[in-house]
């Protein structure tokens, strides 16, 4: 028996939100087809497509050989002719094997030819589980440097559901980064009645504050919220902006907030140099530098691959304590 979708407005796990979004969109649109390694009988490495084979059959649930480049290329060709592929990368890290197909064929196709490529690549990424250098990376910046793609990084179940359905309906190649650490830890309400047709620039102002604007996405939004609660007890009011969509970027909300608070930090789990925080910092400096009372702060992973041991890994990922400490200093500058 296929798993029934959760009822509207209920609180569900982030991983179930992803699964529900896939299932609901496949039910709504028969042209959607899933492709990925071990997604059929096995239900995927994280069991997100468990039961899908029974419900949708092997024409629409396609186990692929270990061939990321071939799979992305096939998805691109199919997407141009009316099929809507959703690819599951077993781990986000593995997309490097399909890099050329993505950045040169799929991403440039619309600009070159004005033929849309409506496809989604789901990318289970991020650290926190001691999974080592090839199962833990945060690689969104690789693709933000490539015009033609859209990049989604939901932090909450509701956004995970809504934006996955929107990504499938969007006529562009969309990279959907889902954070593995949040799969079974994040649980919140989802609204199944609001399912947009496009990925557009958006942000969530999760907490209003007057002292510092903090921008983050994915797992780091949760750590930022934790730090903001702690700092509120000390009288430091943080405005927390979560970015569930990195491309296109809602820079307007960021600039408006920065103009009010005059201090800003960007927190991401990805490595520092050339990370997307650098781009946001640059845009703030370009458009709002005279409103700032202190330099733009970035709190990130160091420029290092993820180490295996959890204790080693924990020293790299920005913790709530580290965030608190750096924000306290920023407040005093």
């Amino acid at each position, binding site marked *: 028996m296929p798993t029934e979708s959760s009822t509207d407005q209920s609180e569900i796990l982030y991983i179930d939100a992803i699964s529900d979004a896939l299932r609901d969109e496949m039910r709504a649109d028969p042209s959607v087809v899933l492709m990925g390694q071990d997604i059929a009988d096995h239900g995927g490495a994280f069991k997100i497509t468990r039961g899908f084979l029974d419900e949708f059959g092997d024409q629409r649930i396609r186990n692929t050989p270990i061939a990321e480049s071939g799979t992305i*290329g096939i998805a*691109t*060709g199919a997407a141009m*002719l*009316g099929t809507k592929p959703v690819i599951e990368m077993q781990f986000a890290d593995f997309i490097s094997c399909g890099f050329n197909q993505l950045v*040169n*064929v799929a991403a440039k196709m619309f600009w070159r*030819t004005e033929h849309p490529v409506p496809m989604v690549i789901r990318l289970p990424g991020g650290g926190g589980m001691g999974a080592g250098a090839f199962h833990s990376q945060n690689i969104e910046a690789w693709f933000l440097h490539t015009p*033609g793609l859209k990049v989604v990084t939901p932090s909450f179940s509701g956004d995970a559901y809504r934006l996955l359905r929107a990504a499938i309906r969007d006529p562009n190649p969309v990279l959907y980064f889902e954070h593995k650490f949040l799969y079974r830890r994040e649980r919140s309400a989802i609204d199944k009645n609001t399912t947009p047709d496009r990925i557009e620039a958006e942000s969530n102002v999760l907490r209003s504050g007057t002292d510092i604007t903090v921008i983050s996405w994915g797992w780091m939004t949760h750590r930022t919220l934790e730090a903001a609660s702690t700092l509120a007890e000390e009288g430091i009011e943080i405005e927390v902006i979560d970015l569930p969509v990195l491309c*296109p970027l809602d820079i307007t909300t960021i600039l408006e907030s920065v103009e009010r608070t005059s201090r800003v930090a960007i927190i991401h789990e990805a490595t520092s140099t050339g990370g997307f925080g650098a781009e946001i910092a640059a845009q703030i400096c370009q458009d709002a530098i005279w409103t700032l009372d202190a330099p733009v702060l970035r709190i990130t992973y160091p420029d290092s691959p993820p180490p295996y041991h959890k204790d080693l890994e924990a020293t790299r990922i920005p913790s709530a304590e580290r965030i608190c400490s750096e924000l306290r200093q920023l407040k005093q500058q």
Partner: protein
Amino acid sequence: MRELDASVHDSLREMHGYMRLAREWDLRFEKMFRTGALSKWYSSVGNEATTVAAACAIEAGDSLLTLHRDSGAILRHYLDIHEILPGLVPQTSSGRKSVGGDSRQRFLRLACQMLGRKHGFSAGHERSYHYNLIEEQHGLIHIGMISHLGSMIPVAAGTAFAFQQQGNHQVALNFIGEGATSTGDFHEALNIASVWKLPFILVIENNRWAFSTPTSQQYACQQLADRGQGYGIPGVQVDGNDPEAVFTVMSSAVDRARSGEGPTLIEAMLGRHRGHSEADDSLDLVPADEQDGYSSQDPLDLVEKKLVDRSTLSVSDLAEIRNRCASLVMVLVDEAMSMPQPDPDLPRRIHAD
């Protein structure tokens, strides 16, 4: 010699008509390159038998994915030769569904595309054969190349995947050079296509030199067709200078694909007649006697000899066909030259709305 029936004569005449048209097309642009009217040209000279014959085996609704050396396939697939050159070749009754639409207009736009004009298929944003032309209402699905050779093989297989998903009986035809068989995409795409039994035909135009690299430095197997066995699909080597042989092999591959049996790998053996592009000296590396061998096997000369030997056409008939093709190309390219340049102020969108 056994008496050939009329349809064999007509079919070869038709293929020859398109081959000649493609040859004149290329010669015109080669000349323009030499006079500086064009910044770059990659020539299809010597590939016409393979490309025209292969395209004769597909029909409206099928997808075509090409490279620089495939003007023969493009012209064959885009144009109704009876419309643009009435009476040049006899009407054949193969039952093949041709793509619809206005052939002359499409031909003119193709010339505009080569010249980077506003009315080209990419409005000046992409060069020569790096464009798509998809006219669903006419059954025309043509997806062009990117510069990364081999990269379009999975995309071609992807069009075949869409056909399979949608439950129709269309097929995908993709041309590559022998150099692209060394890429990972060649392997990944053929493997998936075979496992999924995709209606996909991959034609290798083996002209034995990839830019300056001879086959001895490209692969160590005896023939590339043998690789088919490794994927569990038929791999067939064919004389790429013989359009009738190519057509026969292609027809079997298309039948196999349409009936759901999966892909076929075809290796068409060709000669190297030109440099990698017209702007480089890579042809100098091809030994003189090897080049002479290729010249003596020019597919257009061979097919014209065959037509004369079979008494299908006379030498003066051939001269007239050549003149008519050359004149049409001249007129169209001149017309394209007078068309507007792309407008630098026109925005080009990055994302589809």
